[in-house]
């Protein structure tokens, strides 16, 4: 049927167009395409400079991953076209990481021996390869060391068919440029480490006040209602075990809810019937992984606003909804609320008088660290109008895996 045929062809074309647009949209326009629009291409010298800079810029991104085999393989190709040599190889301190061009089979071993020599002296050198094969074009080799913050990392070896001072100079300069890129890579790594350390420092800030208050509340039950005091102590033990655990940065929503239950049981012991909690949790999102202790501070905040700073009954609503590839968590209270301007300053990291809402900036920062800036807290509030905090958590994010709590003691 032609109708069916046309419709399917249209669908196929739509899919292809989508794919193409998608691929193009994610790829920056090649430099050549952009330059091609201008008729004035510069003098030959300028053009050569542009070409060199462009090749160098292509070699830079892989090197930013550090001196690994994968990075070396990608970079070696670019670097060889930059130097215009017969063959080029990148080594670390012990072995050849990548070889671009001919001759890898019989030159590799000799190169490694030479590299050890270069790394000892720390200077570049140009040597005859003494290759016996008549058809092998690799007659001369330039060895240039690659340095990082902690000394020699490896070497760049450029092979030519004859001795050339130009090649020595060029290879040394390129090696220096590569060294700079590798230093940047180290910088990147230390920045990542710093970020991880920050996440570690941010996690698990249980308020000491809460511990004192809970113990005091339990103490008040010891004589009047020993059974209840015992239950509360067990809740307290479970809560602290969860909060002080040391493995894993992530947990599941189900476990986080369990910890909130314990927290509310302890808070309820202090405030009695004034605390009313409503839960509305879609069971589909219970397995969602999220940063450890990222809801508990929000609930603590709600309790504080609703109970400590006000005298009426406190209603807290905790809701978790399924929204496609994300889970939508909201925590709402009917407490004293807050001036939005003040809240903005608190979230921006300013220390504003008192400790009102210490938990919020911490949670906000952690969520942004893990999921990106689009996933920060959304707070709706006003003075005397209660507060509603919304958290969006993607159901999947690479590297986010919940560490389930050990079962039993």
């Amino acid at each position, binding site marked *: *049927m*032609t*109708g*069916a*045929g*046309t*419709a*399917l*062809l*249209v*669908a*196929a074309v*739509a*899919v292809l167009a*989508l*794919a193409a647009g*998608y*691929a193009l*949209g*994610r790829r920056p326009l090649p430099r050549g395409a952009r330059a091609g629009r201008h008729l004035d291409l510069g003098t030959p010298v300028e053009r050569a400079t542009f070409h060199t800079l462009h090749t160098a810029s292509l070699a830079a991104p892989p090197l930013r991953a550090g001196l690994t*085999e*994968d990075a070396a*393989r990608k970079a070696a190709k670019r670097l060889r076209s930059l130097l215009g040599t017969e063959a080029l190889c990148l080594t670390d301190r012990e072995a050849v990481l990548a070889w671009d061009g001919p001759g890898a089979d019989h030159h590799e071993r000799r190169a490694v021996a030479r590299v050890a020599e270069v790394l000892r002296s720390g200077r570049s050198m140009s040597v005859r390869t003494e290759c016996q094969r008549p058809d092998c074009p690799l007659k001369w080799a330039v060895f240039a060391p690659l340095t990082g913050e902690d000394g020699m990392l490896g070497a760049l070896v450029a092979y030519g068919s004859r001795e050339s001072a130009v090649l020595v100079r060029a290879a040394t300069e390129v090696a220096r440029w590569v060294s700079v890129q590798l230093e940047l890579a180290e910088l990147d790594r230390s920045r990542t480490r710093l970020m991880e350390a920050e996440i570690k420092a941010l996690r698990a800030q249980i308020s000491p006040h809460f511990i004192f208050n809970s113990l005091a509340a339990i103490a008040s039950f010891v004589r009047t209602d020993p059974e209840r005091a015992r239950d509360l102590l067990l809740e307290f033990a479970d809560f602290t075990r969860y909060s002080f655990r040391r*493995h*894993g940065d992530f947990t599941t929503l*189900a476990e986080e*809810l*369990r910890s*909130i*239950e314990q927290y509310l049981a302890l808070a309820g012991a202090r405030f009695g019937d004034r605390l*009313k*909690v*409503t*839960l*509305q*949790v*879609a*069971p*589909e999102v*219970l*397995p969602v992984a999220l940063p450890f202790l990222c809801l508990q501070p929000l609930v603590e905040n709600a309790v504080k606003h609703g109970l400590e700073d006000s005298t009426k009954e406190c209603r807290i609503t905790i809701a978790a*909804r*399924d*929204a*496609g*590839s994300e889970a*939508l968590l909201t925590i709402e209270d009917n407490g004293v609320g807050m001036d939005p301007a003040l809240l903005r300053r608190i979230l921006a990291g300013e220390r504003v008088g008192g400790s009102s809402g210490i938990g919020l900036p911490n949670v906000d920062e952690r969520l942004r660290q893990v999921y990106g800036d*689009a996933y920060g807290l959304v707070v709706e509030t006003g003075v005397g109008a209660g507060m509603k905090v919304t958290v*969006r958590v*993607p*159901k*999947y994010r*690479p590297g*986010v*895996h*919940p*560490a*389930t*709590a050990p*079962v039993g003691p």
Partner: protein
Amino acid sequence: MNQTYALTAVTAVVLATVLVGALGLRMSRTTSDFYVASRTVGPRLNAAAISGEYLSAASFLGIAGLVLLQGPAMLWYPVGYTAGYLVLLVLVAAPLRRSGAYTLPDFAEARLQSRAVRRISVLFVVGVGWLYLLPQLQGAGLTLEILTGAPHWVGGLVVACVVTAAVAAGGMRSITFVQAFQYWLKLTALLVPAFFLLAAWAGDGAPRATLDAPATFREHTVVTLAEDVRLSVAAPLTLTVTGTVDGRAHDGQVVTLSAGRHEVRAATRLEFLPGSAVPRTRPAAGMGVSSWSQPLSGPQDGHRLYATYGLILATFLGTMGLPHVAVRFYTSPDGRAARRTTLVVLGLVGAFYLLPAVYGALGRLYAPELALTGDADAAVLVLPERMVGGTLGDLLGALLAGGAFAAFLSTASGLTVAVAGVLHQDVLPGRARTVSAFRYAAPAAMAVPLAGSVAATDVPVADAVGLAFAVSASSFCPLLVLGIWWRGLTPPGAVAGLLTGGGAALSAVLATRAGLAPAGWVHTLLAWPAVWSVPLGFLTMAGVSLATRSRIPPGTAATLTRLHLPEDVAAHPPAGGHR
């Protein structure tokens, strides 16, 4: 058929779906009891939800239609649809859950740490989703056409609008309850009338269907053809014709057709006498019902055998790659629950698939003329009226119509949520990725198959679904199986395998559906691509991975450990083993 009853049933199903979807959560899960609120979805509820989402128009209407058309060989469809879960259970279910992936692209990224593989899987998820949505909308069109005589595209439009609106408005919040409800609704809608029909059949003297011989008309039957048809008559056939047969106009004359082929023009009225054999059809132009199923009824046994293997491979291996099935495993709390869920699904789906065969066999006895008009998919819907009749027949017909609509709604909404989720996450630019943007992704996910369903007609629903299975089996099955069970898979290997295996299956499917394939063996090969495209996908993926061994992702060992170790073991890593 009584329109009022049927329309009431359809409306009731739509309303019930929307209400359970919107209010189910509020009613069942608003509590102050943490124990109730943090109860995860149990294997039984989740299994009912998976089955509810999975049993589509193809299962509810299509299988009975194909059995009517072509006999018991078509029972490989329900066998394959069910056995797919066996493969899923053994090879994929628990590791997929443990990977923490929500969609299949998530799994690709988690396993291979590569954005490129992720993007290509996105294309295939969307492609498979659209191929699967298309027959759902067409089936809805057919159902509404039979019920009310509305044009073909109306039903598809109604389902598309209801589903898009429900998904976009966030009305599918308690989707697990909705889908579980739909499963039981579908089972009831098919089971209850089946009892009445079997009773009517027994009361009729329990005649036997001759499934390998041509069907015969049991009573005086009038058929009006909707399109040009070429009839093959095995033995001389006497019938009354009003219209054009073999280029000669007749007006109510009695004609005897000799054995052989005869051209019959559209809008011709044929009256058959009781006991005469039902001629086989062969539409004169373009793609029609039987040229689709041609390989299976073809004269050469080789074609038939090949097509059967194609069907078996596609359905056995394709289930794991269906976007709406994979997404549901995320709801299980851990790998063991995912496995248990799959086991229950096997039971639920297996029980359901006993029924369409009954309808198909009864349809061949009591409604054989459907094979002539190309509406064989309607067999399930017209049987109660034919066999039981009266108010009871109308009521049973209404129940079946409601069940059929439940099938369209549940599968279509599951697919729309899955496709829209992928569009929202991977195709929309990062800045626009807010919750409200999900609302725009839903219509986008539905628009293409809707356009396709309006333009393309007359493809048996079960066959069209089989094509989606073939693409899924050639692309995602290698990715999942090799990704879970082989350390050596590399990102370039995965990309190459997805593109060759899935791409070849997709182009074969599109070429067949566009009518570009020449007749004969080439057509058979293209119409049932799984036999060659699945091995092609596996071999390419493994071969390219072996050739690019240096590109094995650095975290492979850790990832595979997480996929295969039970969660409570993984929570106690050996000393120094964590991070």
